[in-house]
């Protein structure tokens, strides 16, 4: 399916990441957003509030992030493509409903323009310390998908991907921007709607009946969704439920349900994966970086190559599920891994786990508030090569 031309602002624009994210949502077919203002994400909802009335959409500024994160799910079951937008403190409040979306398999997109934390932290400055929260923040076991754009162009392109993945796998998708990406202005090319692929809602082919099963999975473990108000008389609950959707309180139903929720992402991980690789063919040192830091390390790689050091960059664009197989492969041939991130070690520990002692791994941590100095990362590269 192609994008609805009404939402696609075709042309070349100068946009910051926040505004580009809004345009991506519009192109993806999102016409319903519930949000609450918070720096540095507010520009996304401000643009939505301006643009939506001209494309037949509705934006409601809710009373808080808790309300926003559940209102989108009411709208999703009402048939809409939905999103909410926030930053760290708001994300903390939304965790309850990330779990609800995972449990009820509600397609929805959560945009987190990350800032320095913990708590109120650094409202106007960047951080990447919500990566593990994005993955594990709500209680219980579940899997989500997280994307990490590094430019305004990607804020447009990957927002569309985020919507498509949320529809395809029926999961909450975390769109992990950060303050730098959100507030940097660059050229953004928005293509014709005929060039934009849209994943439609996976609507059920079953007819309404007494034995309709709301959560009967397809072969890829994802169930189809019914339209509301069409006679299916389905029941949605955050309690552990059987395929009919009815609550059942025992370990067997729990095992069947939660294993499927986890497996529908883990078993489809290779299909979900998006990575970028730079000069890895001969690389002795692999720098693993995502989001804004994946741009900073381009400079490190350039400086290293000038010095004759064989350095390459591996960038997970989809951070969760983590590209485990690819890291394991690289671990078989690289001499060392260097992982810079704007936190004190989150994705780093994933890399270390997968490298599993086959090569030294070094974290280049940073508390946020600014970006890494490429030269600092280079120093670590030189150390591991010594």
């Amino acid at each position, binding site marked *: 399916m192609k994008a609805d031309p009404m939402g696609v602002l075709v042309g070349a624009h100068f946009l910051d990441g926040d505004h580009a994210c809004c345009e991506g949502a519009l192109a993806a077919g999102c016409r319903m957003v*519930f949000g609450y203002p918070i720096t540095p994400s507010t520009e996304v909802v401000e643009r939505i509030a301006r643009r939506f009335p001209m494309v037949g959409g509705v934006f409601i500024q809710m009373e808080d992030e808790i309300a926003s994160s*559940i209102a989108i799910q009411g709208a999703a079951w009402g048939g809409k493509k939905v999103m909410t937008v926030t930053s760290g403190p708001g994300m903390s409040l939304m965790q309850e409903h990330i779990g609800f979306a995972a449990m009820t398999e509600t397609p929805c997109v959560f945009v987190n323009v990350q800032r320095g934390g913990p708590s109120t932290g650094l409202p106007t400055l960047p951080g990447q310390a919500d990566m593990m929260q994005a993955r594990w923040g709500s209680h219980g076991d579940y899997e989500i998908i997280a994307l990490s754009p590094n430019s305004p162009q990607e804020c447009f392109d990957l927002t569309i991907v985020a919507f498509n993945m949320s529809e395809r796998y029926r999961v909450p998708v975390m769109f992990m921007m950060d303050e730098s990406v959100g507030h940097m202005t660059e050229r953004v090319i928005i293509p014709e709607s005929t060039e934009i692929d849209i994943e439609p809602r996976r609507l059920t082919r079953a007819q309404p009946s007494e034995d309709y099963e709301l959560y009967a999975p397809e072969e890829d473990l994802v169930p189809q969704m019914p339209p509301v*108000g069409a006679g299916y008389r389905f029941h*949605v*609950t*955050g309690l552990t439920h059987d395929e009919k959707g009815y*609550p059942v309180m025992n370990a067997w139903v729990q095992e069947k349900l939660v294993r499927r929720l986890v497996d529908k992402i883990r078993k489809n991980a290779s299909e979900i994966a998006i990575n970028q690789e730079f000069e890895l063919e001969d690389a002795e040192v692999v720098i693993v970086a995502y989001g804004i830091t994946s741009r900073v390390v381009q400079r490190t790689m350039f400086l290293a190559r000038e010095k004759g050091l064989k350095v390459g960059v591996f960038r997970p664009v989809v951070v969760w599920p983590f590209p485990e197989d690819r890291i394991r492969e690289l671990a078989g041939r690289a001499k060392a891994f260097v992982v810079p991130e704007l936190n004190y070690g989150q994705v780093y520990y994933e890399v270390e786990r997968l490298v599993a002692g086959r090569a030294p791994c070094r974290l280049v941590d940073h508390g946020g508030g600014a970006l890494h100095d490429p030269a600092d990362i280079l120093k670590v590269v030189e150390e591991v090569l010594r």
Partner: protein
Amino acid sequence: MSQGEHRNPVESFLRMDRMPHIWCPGCGIGIVVNCFVRALLKSKIDVDSVSVVSGIGCTGRIAGYFKVDSFHTTHGRPIPFATGLKTARPDMNIVVLSGEGDLIAIGGNHFIHAARRNVDIKVICVNNFTYAMTGGQVGPTAPLHSIATTAPYGSHERPFNLPFLAESSGATYVARWTTYHVRQLTKAMVDVLNKPGFCFVEAIAPCPTIYQRRNRMGDGLEMMRFYREHSRIANGADTRSLDIEMGGEIVVGKFIDRDRPTYLEAMDEELSKRLGNRYVPYPTGVKR
């Protein structure tokens, strides 16, 4: 189970495959369920256009027993979920059925803001003065001096007067009945199914297992007797006068029935005025 010709007309609206339900004998929640089904029958609206949204608690289990598209959401959040559902499907009738702990304590902020915006949803609140499912803790409407597990020497907090809260927040319809007043309660539900805007019905209900036992108020039947003897019908009463005291009078009635533009109507009016022909109206599909 009843068969064939003896089938209770209520059954076709309930998920009979989920019976028996979890509620205790003498619990008022079943009466509220019964009234709501009868209201659906009376109002003759298409059942498939109705969706029930609940939160968490004894009353929160209501959604699971109604044979309509039903949503059992998180604690305190049925109102914002319903706001999303209603906004996506303005042609549907969205009913929130939940308890006072869910709607007024943890969900209190959502309650007042949905009423303020006049979101077109119907909120039916079963008020049994306690957190029953977790064993009887003090709640936002617990009368002064009532005993609860977390107020073992009696509550010293001032309780909310729900009709007053609903009215001052902006609800278009406000009523209170007890489960003794089944006819009036059913009528109030018929009213709100047909009334646009944020409508609020408080259903005062016995919880014999937890609240009454702890406060030595007798069983379900005794509570019905209490409601009969201690209720006073005062339609149109000033909602400021509706406080409930331990063992005191319960003023019931329809207090508010007024018209205000709903959220989507107000949005549509403002945007069409401001944007003129640049405005692409959100297709609400509502015919009124």
